[in-house]
């Protein structure tokens, strides 16, 4: 009796849970359930990789508000000021794409690291002055909790420029502009020069200008490292990869003169990983071209310069990795003869003690040389509306990076330059043919 009752009771209990099954069928289900449970436990326990989703930790994120192409000092400076000047904390997602994480060919690391205010354009002077104050207070700007303070190893010796008789007037007017902008530069006559620096041969020198303050050289690697550290703490993502494609969308619009203009805007950046064909399309709102010596290639990817020459569409970005007289830029091999033939004679003439000079080591680096007027390109492109330039500084990039970064960030966030007006450095000048050139090229 009891034997018949118990299974009956159990059966009813099971049946109330699962009304669909037959009375005698629960044993088969139980076996199935057990094997399912065993499979689940096996997959959850550590030791077996749960490969439900593929691993994408080496790829950049799929969305980013701003993509900065180029992780040198200019790109990092733009990223820093974007995060610093944004209105809401965490409001902007910034991604910095750098092709070479060792920075082996980047102009930043190979730079001498000099800073100087002796320019003829007031904008250049203001940029250098701001950069000097940024570097002076670098431990306040780039402070990261628990990180040791940065030591830039700044050497505050000034730059001395010598002018012959025919350049003396230009030098005097330059110094006047520099003093007006607030740079501490003084003019010296040949006698004062001999007094101060008895080891200089003042033959042929009519006038000299000497920077008293805020000029010298510092360690660019330290600045780079400090910026990277601070950006990582501010939430900027870094990615090692190469930008291979921009996906743009165009819009035809009529100007006030009833001309058709095609405005493009980049909405996706394809970042290709090193040593593989894998790429990640990153959706973005703004792209910043801070690729230094290779900026022209990035601009060409966005279609800048693809058009009949002479038109705005056909105006290329005139930035090249070279400089006129200097040796072949195909690689970074040092041409020792260049020093012997071109540089040493001048040195030995000016400083007789250098006649017995011997070169111990030498290294080479690229200039992002602007072939048009040797000054930087800053600001948006008129046709590709969301590409901003911060490149082409032809040897001054490092010393003007903080100021330029701030200017580009202001342009993006506010729509116009707020502190230093860099309108003479906009892209339009290449099409209009207006050169913003320095009087004295260093």
């Amino acid at each position: 009796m009891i034997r018949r009752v118990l299974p009956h009771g159990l059966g009813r209990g099971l049946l109330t849970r699962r009304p669909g099954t037959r009375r005698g069928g629960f044993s088969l289900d139980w076996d199935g359930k057990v094997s399912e449970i065993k499979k689940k436990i096996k997959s959850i326990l550590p030791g077996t990789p749960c490969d439900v989703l593929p691993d994408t930790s080496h790829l950049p994120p799929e969305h980013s508000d701003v993509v900065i192409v180029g992780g040198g000092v200019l790109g990092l400076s733009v990223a820093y000021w974007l995060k610093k000047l944004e209105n809401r904390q965490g409001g902007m997602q910034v991604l910095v794409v750098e092709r070479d994480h060792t920075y082996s060919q980047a102009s930043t690391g190979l730079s001498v690291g000099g800073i100087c205010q002796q320019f003829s354009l007031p904008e250049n002077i203001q940029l250098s002055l701001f950069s000097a104050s940024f570097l002076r207070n670098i431990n306040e700007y780039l402070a990261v909790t628990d990180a040791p303070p940065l030591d830039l190893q700044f050497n505050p010796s000034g730059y001395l420029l010598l002018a012959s008789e025919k350049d003396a007037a230009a030098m005097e007017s330059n110094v006047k502009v520099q003093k007006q902008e607030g740079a501490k530069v003084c003019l010296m006559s040949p006698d004062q020069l001999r007094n101060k620096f008895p080891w200089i041969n003042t033959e042929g020198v009519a006038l000299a200008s000497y920077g008293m303050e805020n000029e010298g050289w510092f360690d660019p690697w330290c600045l780079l490292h400090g910026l990277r550290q601070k950006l990582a703490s501010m939430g900027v993502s870094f990615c090692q990869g190469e930008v291979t494609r921009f996906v743009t969308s165009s819009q035809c619009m009529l100007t006030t003169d009833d001309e058709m203009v095609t405005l493009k805007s980049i909405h996706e950046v394809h970042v290709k990983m090193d040593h593989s064909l894998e790429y990640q399309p990153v959706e973005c709102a703004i792209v910043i071209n801070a690729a230094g010596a290779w900026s022209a290639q990035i601009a060409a990817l966005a279609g800048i310069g693809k058009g009949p020459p002479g038109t705005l569409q056909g105006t290329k970005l005139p930035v090249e990795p070279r400089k006129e007289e200097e040796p072949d830029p195909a690689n970074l091999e040092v041409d020792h003869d260049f020093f012997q033939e071109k540089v040493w004679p001048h040195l030995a003439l000016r400083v007789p003690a250098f006649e017995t000079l011997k070169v111990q080591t030498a290294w080479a680096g690229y200039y992002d040389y602007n072939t048009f007027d040797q000054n930087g390109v800053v600001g948006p492109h008129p046709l590709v509306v969301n590409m901003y330039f911060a490149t082409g500084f032809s040897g001054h990039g490092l010393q003007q990076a903080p100021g330029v970064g701030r200017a580009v960030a202001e342009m993006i966030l506010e729509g116009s330059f707020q502190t230093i007006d860099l309108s003479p450095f906009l892209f339009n000048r290449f099409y209009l043919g207006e050169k913003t050139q320095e009087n004295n090229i260093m």
Partner: protein
Amino acid sequence: MAAPWVSLRLVAPMLNGTRGIHRLGGAVVPEGNQKKERTMLQFLTNHFYDVEALRGYLFQREMSKVHLKNRSFTWLEEQHGPYSAGAFFILKQGGAVKFRDKEWIRPDKYGHFSPEFWNFREVPVEAVDASDCEINYEGLDNLLLLKELQSLSLQRCPHVDDWCLSRLYPLADSLQELSLAGCPRVSERGLACLHHLQNLRRLDISDLPAVSNPGLTQILVEEMLPNCQVVGVDWAEGLKLGPEEQPQDTASPVPA
């Protein structure tokens, strides 16, 4: 940044020994406890955004305190003349000033000082003792108002660094005595730009922790300023390896 609450890294290392306001009681915290506090704080900082943000905010507050101390007093120049304006700045910082033919004016332990110097419109300041003051680059704006300064002492100033030294050249005509002893941020690169101060007769560069080779630096500074007596380091310091301190010759075979 490395120690709780106070930005000890940017302030002179000597403050490590003094008592921070947040330490318990009057006892100096032993080294072991300091280390534990530091790693606990670092652990919290690495794991909680709030702690990191709080520490960042406290650090910025310390910085703005220093900036406030070094704000510009040049607006006082029109009313009271440059010498009184500069003297007021130094006295506010906690330093002492000496006008020509007058006695030293020092603030007492509460920071109060006598207002008699406001009357000295035409009397130049001869000597300034800014030891242990928090003067930085911006504050030098006010110090450089004192055009006929003859003696300047910046001993143990925690924020005086190479940039500040490069700014001292306007005092080249009058400055005869300068003391930089114990400044933690002055290095040989900053000392190199003292070449403008050709009227200097006495320079004290002892105890500069950031200078890599004190003996060599002393020789170079003496060469740079031929008329100046450079006090500080004994240049033979680097050569002081006596016979008993000769390094052991590890290449010689051990006698069997």
